[in-house]
């Protein structure tokens, strides 16, 4: 498997590819020997050439500054942002997703969204995050509304006023199912 293909397959599966994974792949293909320090120059040259030749391959630094890769053909910027935020503070992950949804679509989103892939937080983790947010000034715009069916929706009051958010949440949780 060539490097570009490896990155594309991983992207399709929703994964960023670490540089060391690519190195390991090249060793398995016997394109490189296992000593990284000895092979570093050759490895970087192969990598650079691959990126230059494939416009869809993108490089991202991780929090330690090490590069990771993905294919924009198979992974959207939206998804990349979610993966990167997952590595950071979960409060920021939730807040930014809520803000994006409130601003762009616009809509509140069900709290349960964060239990599903790719967020995969537990109910307890989500509630703990929301509790912490309520005490921190950076998250004072993150608000909640509860529908008549008991579902909690989150929104940013910068982008949605409470009445509008409440009406939309009721529509998404109850109204649309009564009007299929």
């Amino acid at each position, binding site marked *: 498997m060539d490097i570009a293909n490896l990155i594309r397959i991983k992207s399709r599966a929703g994964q960023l590819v670490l540089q060391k994974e690519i190195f390991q792949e090249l060793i398995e293909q016997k394109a490189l020997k296992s000593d990284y320090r000895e092979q570093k120059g050759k490895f970087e040259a192969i990598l650079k050439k691959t990126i230059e030749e494939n416009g869809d391959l993108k490089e991202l630094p991780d929090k330690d500054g090490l590069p990771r890769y993905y294919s924009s053909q198979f992974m*959207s910027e939206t998804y990349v942002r979610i993966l990167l935020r997952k590595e950071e503070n979960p409060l920021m992950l939730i807040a930014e997703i809520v803000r994006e949804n409130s601003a762009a679509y616009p809509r509140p*989103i069900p709290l349960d*969204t964060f239990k599903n*892939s790719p967020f995969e937080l537990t109910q307890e983790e989500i509630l703990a995050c929301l509790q912490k947010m309520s005490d921190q000034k950076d998250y004072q715009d993150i608000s909640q509304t509860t529908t008549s069916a*008991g579902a909690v929706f989150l929104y940013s009051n910068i982008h949605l*006023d409470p009445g509008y958010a409440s009406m939309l949440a009721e529509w998404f949780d109850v109204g649309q*199912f009564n009007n299929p």
Partner: protein
Amino acid sequence: MAKFGGWAGTVLHVDLSTGRIWAEDTVEKYKDYLGGTGIGYKIMWEEVLAGTKPYDPNNRIIFAVGPLAGTGAPCNGRTAITTLWPTCWPVPLVASGHMGGQFAAKLKYAGYDAVVIKGRADRPVWLSIVDKHVEIQDARHLWGKGIRWTTTAISQVMGPEAVVAAIGQAGESLVPMSVVMNSVSHSAGGIGSVMGSKNLKAIGVVGTGSVRIAGNKDEWEKLIKYHLSLLGANNQHVVPSSPQPWAEFYAPSSRWKGSKGRAWGAAPHPIETGTCHPHDLNRIAYRTNNAAFFMGDIAWKYTVKGNGCTSCPIRCHTMIKVPSAAAKYGIPEVGQNTCGGLNFGRSFFKSFPDGPRGMTNMEACMVGMYMSDDYGIWCNYSQLQRDFQKLYYSGTIKSKLGEKEFKSYSWDKYEKGDPSFLFELVPRIALKEGELGTILGLGTGYLLERWSIPEKEWKKSQELNYWKFGHPKHHASEEAGQCGVIINTQYNRDPQCHSHVNFIRNGLPLEIQKRLAAEIWGSPDAVDGVGAYTPMNIGKAKMAKWSLLRKELHDSLSLCNWMGPWVASPLKERGYRGDDSIESMLYSLATGDKKSRQELDQVAERIFLLHRALTIRDMDTKEMRTQHDTIPEWVYDDPSHKAVYTKGTTHLDRDDVKLAMDMYYEEMAWDKKTGAPTSFAYQKAGLKKVADELTKKGLLP
């Protein structure tokens, strides 16, 4: 006929009173009306006199399909059934119901574009169609049986390749709220009792032929793949419900439920739906799971697979296997349906002991499907259940029933959300047993009349979703503002129009929706965010006209208006554009009759005008604006008293809605004062004879 592809070439006529069966050439007489509702309205105009009642032998039932039925075009499984509508109140008027399944394709393969039924048999019969061999068969042994038994019995006679469209006991009993159903779960509401009035239990079809495509085979296959590439999930939701690697956008309210980690848990070996990349055309069927959409994530465990219509990859009839329903209620453990059919049972109840998306809810769905899809009861877009809840919780049922009948129901079970209550209620509706069973089967308008409840009581609150003429709204102002209002004024039942709502609910951000709206309807302001409505503008009038014409076009071509039009797509590289010309490309290549998008829309307008003319003729008034295109009070009301056109309210301004109707009539080139089409409008659409007849009756503005 050989000149054209698409059409089978023959319209089959059956007179059940005389036993006469004859055929006429489709293309010669109906080509300018395409098929489906086009054929239906034309026959109703020419053969059924004003003043005819639904159960008169002279009423027709027209099962008609279009030139795309039975081809490889995606989503072509719809059969339009046109007749005088028995639940249309206070005067029955023309309307159509639509069933999916396999009936449409089989009818074409047997060589027919339509089956027109008139008369009344002197005993219960069923119609056997095996290619050119058509026979009226004795159905006395089937009378009194449910749809499943009937389907099985006829299939045993005709063979496993047969498709059977049958009525249940409700249709036999002349319950207006009844359906005809084929292929286990695909029903058309409102038709059952009209078949029952003709003593027609079922139509069985075996077709061994094929549909000829006039155009080049390679071009046709390329076009099919192109169309497939534009498909989203059910209702043309073009973004997934949760973030997926490939997706730039997502919408938790999307019916595109498939994703990594979500599997059909009750398949023989659980099947993961996966990320369903939009370019992977062989995995479109994994996108939609309507059981999970309506019942919540709990449904994944019980999902067997998606089922659906001929040549449709969407598979919106999700099959679920719920052993606890079988154990508790003695019903089959497998059921399938979508939307109103899937929700038939649960919709009677206000709540369930384990919440709105727990096991009891699912079991109520199972019991409801089992009973309604066998007795053949119609929900009228769940108006039946809304009426029932309202009548019960307002104390009306108690006050109207005698004590003995009231006590014969286990109301404690009902209030607790016990699905076994349905075993007490549903058969009584189907068999017209007792006052309650009888009134619920009448349809809302006749129900209100019988119990002396003013219709205006039902028009007050959006909670009931009631619109007019005994029927509910179907995607109106609550989510589509003025465009939704206009559409809901136009038909004699709920409009069943999804052209507008499939766009509004597609899941794309508002900014992209507005960009697409500007391209399609000439203005980004044709669409608003739900609950963030703005005053009327010409873009909204154009969107309403386009929506209605596309609905008629789909109903006449046999394309599914629950999926189309396809003017948005999941494809980022297309800027999420779909293609507004897909219908004309399919029609032109299939039939060989080349028509542009605009030309085909003109045909749709002709068909829609014929529906309008039938309505005017049968109502015997041209005052459509005040007598027909009426709007319930709840459209103008907001219980929270928010100002109109502020965010968070869906109510509209009365004067602005008047303007909306003005702009719509102008867009249609109809008379604004009466809302009736002008002589010019009819003549422009090639309906001079219709205009002449209406002139004679004084029904032109």
